[in-house]
């Protein structure tokens, strides 16, 4: 026997197809995880956007708006260090909760699918295939959730901005800065979801094929 001759590393296209089939099958769970990511990322995008707007009030807002804000004492209030550190805390907690949510959801999915994973290993599936399967599932939810969150966050920030600053809102944030901000948010979302899936994926890959024989759940 020459074992290495035909051991298949499944092409990514196939692994993606299998992962997508799994996500469709567990539609409700997929939806919930995606929402959890979307919410955290919407919060992040919203905070970054409105902070960016506030930061540019001095140099980009019209004189009329600056005078109105100064009259109402809002300028100091918006820039107060207290409020900013409070926001940073909330942001950190939101991202942490989202991360824990992803890890938890993926771990449950590993436990639930012990028989499926064991069976795949009995049929000749490699550890690397199982890892890829879980990372791709998570990555897909991450991309969808993050993009959704970014859209919601930007809309929220601008809706609130228009309420506070009126028509000036559209000029406050330079397009370049907005782009950088969105790239950072996207990166955060992807890192968050992939990092959250690493341990569950490793756990799944380390399952023994004999688990497929277990009859109790």
């Amino acid at each position, binding site marked *: 026997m020459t074992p290495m001759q035909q051991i298949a590393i499944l092409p990514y296209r196939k692994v993606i197809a299998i992962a997508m089939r799994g996500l469709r099958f567990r539609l409700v769970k997929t939806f919930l995880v995606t929402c959890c990511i979307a919410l955290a990322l919407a919060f992040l995008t919203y905070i970054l956007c409105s902070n960016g707007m506030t930061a540019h009030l001095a140099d980009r807002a019209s004189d009329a708006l600056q005078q109105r804000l100064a009259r109402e004492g809002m300028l100091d209030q918006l820039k107060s260090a207290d409020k900013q550190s409070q926001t940073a805390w909330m942001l950190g907690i939101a991202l942490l909760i989202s991360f824990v949510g992803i890890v938890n959801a993926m771990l449950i999915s590993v436990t639930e699918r012990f028989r499926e994973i064991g069976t795949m290993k009995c049929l000749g599936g490699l550890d690397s295939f199982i890892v890829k399967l879980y990372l791709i599932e998570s990555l897909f939810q991450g991309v969808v959730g993050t993009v959704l969150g970014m859209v919601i966050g930007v809309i929220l920030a601008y809706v609130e901005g228009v309420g506070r600053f009126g028509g000036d809102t559209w000029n406050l944030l330079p397009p370049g800065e907005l782009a950088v901000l969105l790239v950072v948010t996207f990166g955060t979302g992807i890192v968050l979801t992939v990092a959250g899936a690493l341990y569950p994926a490793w756990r799944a890959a380390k399952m023994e094929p004999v688990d497929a024989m277990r*009859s109790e759940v």
Partner: protein
Amino acid sequence: MIDDVTTSAQIVRAIGVRKVFRMGDEEVQALKGVNFSVRRGEYIALMGPSGSGKSTLFNMIGGLDKPNAGRVFIDEVDIAALSTIELAWLRCHKIGYIFQTFNLIPVATALDNVMLPLLFADVPATDAQDRAVELLKKVGLGERIFHKPVQMSGGQQQRVAVARALANNPAILLADEPTGNLDSKTGHAIIELMRELNESEGVTVISATHDYKMLSVSDRIAWLTDGVIERFAKRDELDIKEGSTDVRH
């Protein structure tokens, strides 16, 4: 108790196999030096009460577990010497698994289930599809290739599992209580199907079972008790009655 057949005709050879499990401070000897061999093309049943070491021996034959002492050869390959990837190769190409709980991938159609081991074996997709359709026809499910497991009865699901197990032309069909979750009539049909395939394809069938229907088609039956093989019996030595099995002496 090693058989007198020549080595090359043996698909499985277990020599002095011992397996010890640790449970806390206690050591449990699951297998206490088992010698066991299976001829190519044989249909063999492993029997024994729970705790007899039956599952442990069964898992070793299936390349799912390694012995603490002694050696297990599958098609002349010592499984203890294999790396993780080589074991995956062995499972993919040499052994077809049939489970008590069917274990079809729930999200996939019958066709996709049968195609999965073929994809793992690097068979091109179109060839894999042809092979899967052919196998599903062979097990009598030509009309249901696009059905999902939930849309099929237990017997049909087990037929898909049999087709999937045969996908890569394995040398051994390893069945763990294949009729355990089926009613008597359906179970009988699955046993017949496995026997037919054993005869037509020459695949060796090794089955762990409590099912007396299984014994009547087996070439040989191995009884395990307390981690040793207590005895072997040939089919013609068996006197099978409903609900009991005696060996004529």
